[in-house]
């Protein structure tokens, strides 16, 4: 099985647990395996679906659909509240299993997707397909989850293969066979295409990946412009992107809150932003970093999304200034009356906190800042010891984020 793989070829394994949250719930309660399952916040009247089982999907339930509509479509479904921390735990357990085979692992946020670059590990762990089989066996035994695994020479090929065999199975694409493998497949299996691009491809009757591969780069340039390079390469199975490890410290900090019941109440939204600020500020201070830009991402209940930012020259990790920036960004982002489903705060343009004091700072302001710093420091100490929710400012949202 592994003959086709030579060392100079890349070997990327893709593990994909279909409906991850459902799979984890079904592990913790085996009775749930018998029935369609919908995961969504249960106490809220206007909750939306967080995840659903394959059976529920078959009946028309989709992620983000209002729960009441979902339960009408799929009347026999079992309903469960999401337990995000449990899914994180399961991700970590899965990750631990994979870390034994490669340092290069790329994974998402509690979604059951992993890319593992096993190029050159043949001597240590045996042929890549064996790793796939072995991981699945172990995960099945230790976690009770049955992941799809696929093997290809790139993330793209492995991903397409995984989409092909979903919800269970495995697939190996031998090096050199990428184009032959992709050619007969329907175009929608190709990752990274926007809805618009899919529509265009359909209009041009480019219904298979092979048909797309039949056009040269110049021809693709005509309808797709700068995207022609990606399409040209992807349709032939060429993908040079690396398997990236966990995000490095220098990138950004993001904290998100999804409202169980969507809302357009100003006070509630301000409370949530304050809570997000305190969480992000804590992380910044822990990392000894400051952010020079704060962004607010709002997702409205009708699916619309708005992103707005506010920045400051010096950078900050203090809650007060972060809060000011966040509110400025929020004011720019929140222009509609429609309810908000989720709010995400992103601190970026990070840099190391300078320990150098300002030479000409006014004494009074300095005193105020100093006192503020002390309070924040004391709060951080408490948080580290007793958990983040133990203390916060008065206006902040007190529920779980």
């Amino acid at each position, binding site marked *: 099985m592994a003959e086709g793989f030579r060392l100079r070829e890349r070997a990327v394994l893709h593990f994909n647990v279909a409906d991850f949250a459902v799979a984890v719930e079904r592990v913790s309660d085996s009775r749930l395996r018998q029935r369609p399952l919908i995961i969504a916040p249960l106490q809220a*009247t*206007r909750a939306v679906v967080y995840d659903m089982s394959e059976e529920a999907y078959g009946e028309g339930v989709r992620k983000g659909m*209002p729960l*009441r*509509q979902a339960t*009408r479509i799929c009347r026999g479904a079992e309903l469960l509240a999401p337990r995000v921390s449990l899914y994180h735990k399961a991700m970590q357990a899965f990750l631990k299993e994979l870390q034994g085979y490669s340092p290069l692992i790329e994974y998402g946020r509690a979604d059951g997707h992993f890319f593992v670059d096993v190029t050159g590990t043949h001597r240590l762990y045996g042929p890549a397909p064996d790793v796939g089989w072995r991981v699945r066996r172990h995960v099945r035994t230790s976690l009770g989850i049955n992941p799809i695994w696929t093997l290809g020479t790139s993330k793209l090929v492995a991903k397409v293969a995984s989409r092909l065999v979903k919800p269970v199975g495995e697939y190996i694409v031998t090096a050199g066979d990428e184009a032959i493998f992709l050619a007969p497949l329907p175009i929608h299996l190709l990752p990274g295409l926007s809805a618009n691009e899919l529509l265009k491809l*359909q*209009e*041009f*009757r*480019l219904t298979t990946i092979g048909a797309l591969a*039949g*056009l040269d780069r110049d*021809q693709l*340039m*005509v*309808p797709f*412009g700068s995207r022609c390079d990606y399409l040209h390469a992807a349709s032939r199975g060429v993908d040079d992107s690396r398997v990236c490890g966990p995000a490095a410290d220098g990138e950004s900090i993001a904290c998100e809150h999804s409202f169980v019941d*969507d*809302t*357009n*109440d*100003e*006070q509630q939204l301000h409370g949530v932003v304050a809570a997000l600020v305190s969480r992000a500020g804590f992380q910044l201070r822990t990392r000894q970093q400051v952010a020079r830009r704060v962004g607010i991402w709002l997702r*409205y*209940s*009708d699916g619309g999304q708005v992103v707005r930012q506010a920045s400051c020259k010096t950078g900050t990790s203090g809650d007060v200034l972060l809060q000011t920036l966040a509110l400025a960004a929020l004011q720019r982002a929140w222009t509609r*009356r*429609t*309810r908000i489903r989720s709010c995400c705060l992103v601190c970026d343009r990070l840099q190391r906190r300078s320990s150098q004091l300002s030479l000409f700072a006014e004494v009074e302001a300095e005193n105020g800042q100093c006192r503020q710093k002390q309070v924040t420091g004391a709060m951080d100490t408490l948080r580290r010891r007793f958990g983040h929710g133990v203390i916060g400012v008065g206006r902040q949202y007190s529920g779980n984020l």
Partner: protein
Amino acid sequence: MLPLRVRSYYSLLQATTSPAALCRRAKELGYAGLAMTDRDNLYGLWDFLKACRREGLRPIVGAEISEPGSGKIITCLVQNIDGYTNLCALLTRRHKAGGLAGNSAGSFSLADDVAPLASGLLVLCRDTDLLRRYKEQGVEAAADLGARPDALGRTLRAVAGGLGLAAVVTADSAMGEENDRQLYCLLQAVRDGKTISQAMRQETAAGNWLAGKEVYRTRFAVWPEMMEATAKLAASCTFTGPDFGVVMPPWRGGDGRQPALVLRQKAYLGARHRYGDDLGEPVVERLEHELKVIEAMGFSAYFLVVRDIVHRKAADGRRKKRRICGRGSGAASLVAYCLDITNVCPIKYNLYFERFLNPGRTDPPDIDIDFSWDERDEVLTDVLRDYQGHAAMVCNHVFFQLRMAIRETAKAFGLPGGEISRVTKRIPWLHAGGTESLQQSLVSLPSLRDQDLSPPWPEILALAEKLIGVPRYLSVHPGGVVITPKPISCYVPVEWAAKGVPIIQWEKDGAEEAGLVKIDLLGNRSLGVIRDSIAAINADNICLDEESWQPEDDAATRMAVADGATMGCFYIESPAMRLLEKKAGTGDFEQLVIQSSIIRPAANAFVREYVRRLHGGTWQPLCPEIGDVLDDTFGLMVYQEDVSRVAVALAGFSHGEADGLRKVLSKKDKILRLEHYKTMFFAGCARRHVDPVEVERMWQMMMSFDGYSFCKPHSASYARVSFQAAYLKRHYPAEFMAAVIANQGGYYSTFAYVSEAKRLGLQILHPDVQTSTIRWAGKKERIRVGLQSVHGLSDGFLQRLLLERGREHFGDIGDFFRRTQPADNEARALIHAGALDGLHPEGNRTALLWQWASFQRLLQDKRRLSLFQVRLPPAPPLSPPDLKSRLRREYAVLGFLCDHHPLQFFNQQHKGALKVAALAERIGQRVQLAAWLLTGKLVSTRTGEAMEFLTFEDETGQLETTFFPEVYRSHAHMLQSGRGYLLTGMVEADFGALTLTVDAVRPLHSC
């Protein structure tokens, strides 16, 4: 003391309570009168005066006037008729300055513009500078201390004292009572586009409610003299409403000759044109009678004004003949017919002149004229220009209706638009709540069965219910124009609608109460259809002489009418009407007049009885006392005037009283006034010893004219147009159907008309950029789809296309794109509609899409400056779209298919399903068939249950179906027009008309 400065809900979105409720509240609080002062308007004047009369209150007329941009407000109270005239002028001036960009003229300042128009007005203000200025200018002013003593009040009081002016307490209220607070916040949210939570938090002091005298007395205990000053000031406002009498439009022609003389002369001249030189005795007798009544009532000038409007004299002094159709009772007048302002002979069709004018009638009659819809605006522009400053259109007060109220409230609660539409779109138009709450009534609606009304919907619906009936904005009446002898702003404030026309601040009922005579100039699509059909026929060198055209005597046309083949024909194309035509099977003009009048909401039983009697069923007069009054209509009350005639014959009503009864039946707020007529009717019948059981039966029959009903002249006038349309459809179907679709606005969708055209054997040709015009065009057996039906084409693009095509035909696709410069959506729509097929050798639409992409790429590529010399590179070998995709896209941009019926693409797995054409052989049998839903009409059974009549079609014909309440309840939520269904039900026949009584429905899925 009287509460001054009380805003009603006519202060749009700034107050909550109706004038009637305010007056009721004022009465409860023990006031002897009140001053209703809405913001910048007198919209509610007549409601207010009526409510004051009912409650026995003394009205004080007034308005608040705001200064655009500054937020300053004064309150003007009217002391006498001069003050009223000045207030109207001030408000008009305020609106002229503060109107929309383009309409606004000059500026409006409270400091400078009030003084010249201040006589007869008492001005209350809360601005010390303004107070001083008014004092200097000699304006009668007083300081307005508001509803609570505050710091500003103290300053105002001091300044007023220093100037020797009075200072008064005002209610400054926007609500009738405290409970209206939530509604008030909702209105703020709607007005400012805020959320309800923001509005609740930001609620300001402007939200005062009307309190009792004692409350104000207690609040102002520090300045007790203010209460007395207020009472004194109120007492000086003695004006209790305008009384203009009847205000007729002035006639400016005649060169000093009496209008009556000119009218006589013109009427006889017209009569000779209509009937020949030898006028028979009936014509002369009738003319004399009418002229006598018209002159005695002083309406001669009115007829001449209407004639001048309808057939306006051009600059060369010649009258421009327009295609018109008289509507309403005016068509009963022979004088009007002779003046060419109506189109049916009242003698030939026995039309009752007294329905239009009678000596007992106190209110002014109105002559309503229909013009072709696309010529109407020109007529209005001419009138408004000819009578500039003296003419304006009547407005409509647009109130929050159920759907709008729910939509706006839900938006303030932040629900997404899609979620709101899912609920509002499924509420039937005629939904009436009844006694239960809005939520209860919506939950029980079958069409909302599968909708989620969980929180926050209950809160939204509870609040929306309060919003229903609150005025939101003004719109322009479809055609009502008022022309006055003095400048119109002497009678009523005028403002300017968004499209730039002047409108008076009252709607038609208010205008009528004020005595302003309204002329209705309305748009009628079918006149355009007839005009275009005749033009198309004449262009084909067939001459149709309209002067001698008598379509009602054409046998083929009569047969078509008798067969109900009148889809597309004005006024007689609805499913109910076509079924009735089939049942009647006569197709003659007189019966069509009856049929088009008898179909009204509350008269189903009469329709059945009419058909039975028409086919020879026996009948007796309603009661012996009525005699032969209703013999023409087989003893049934069909027309509006039958109510009057029965009231005269049975209860001894005078013509005026009988006309009053007829009129009150069509009013919205009739309950009180109807009670009065009922008493009169029963008393009159009792005096004449009519059997009380019969009287009750008769009264109930009269009540079936509740809502909309028609008078015979109106129906006859319309039936003439109907016959013209039916004639054109029968003899020139391609020209006619093309004109029907091109003029739009018929009862059915374009899809349904296209199907009908196909059933008539016509070929529908795809739109084509080389040959299509903007409008549809029919010739012989073919109809070419007009570019107007390709969704998304802008006017600018269409003009460019026609211009370029006029210069030179398009050589190839690149040439077309280059010369017409379509937007992306326009090019794609044209390709999908098949309008560019001719520009590709194989008509391959995939290749055309590629070519479009190539063209766009070249445009973007800055290096290719030689774009206009190069040809587009050939497309790669792409296969054309498969049939289903092609048709799906075609349907999406056109709304219909040129060569197929969508039903062909649905799963036809149901064995034994029939076609509509085959149903005639299955009468009395249970059948199954696949059909396409076109339209539906929801009705209520006698017990108040909802049921629906739905029209379906397939390739072979149309089918009327009945969904009785039980079936309707279980299937309503899945019924949506423009979709295919599998129907199961019983075929029934009634006097030859087939219907299907459905017992099961299933949506069809495409295969």
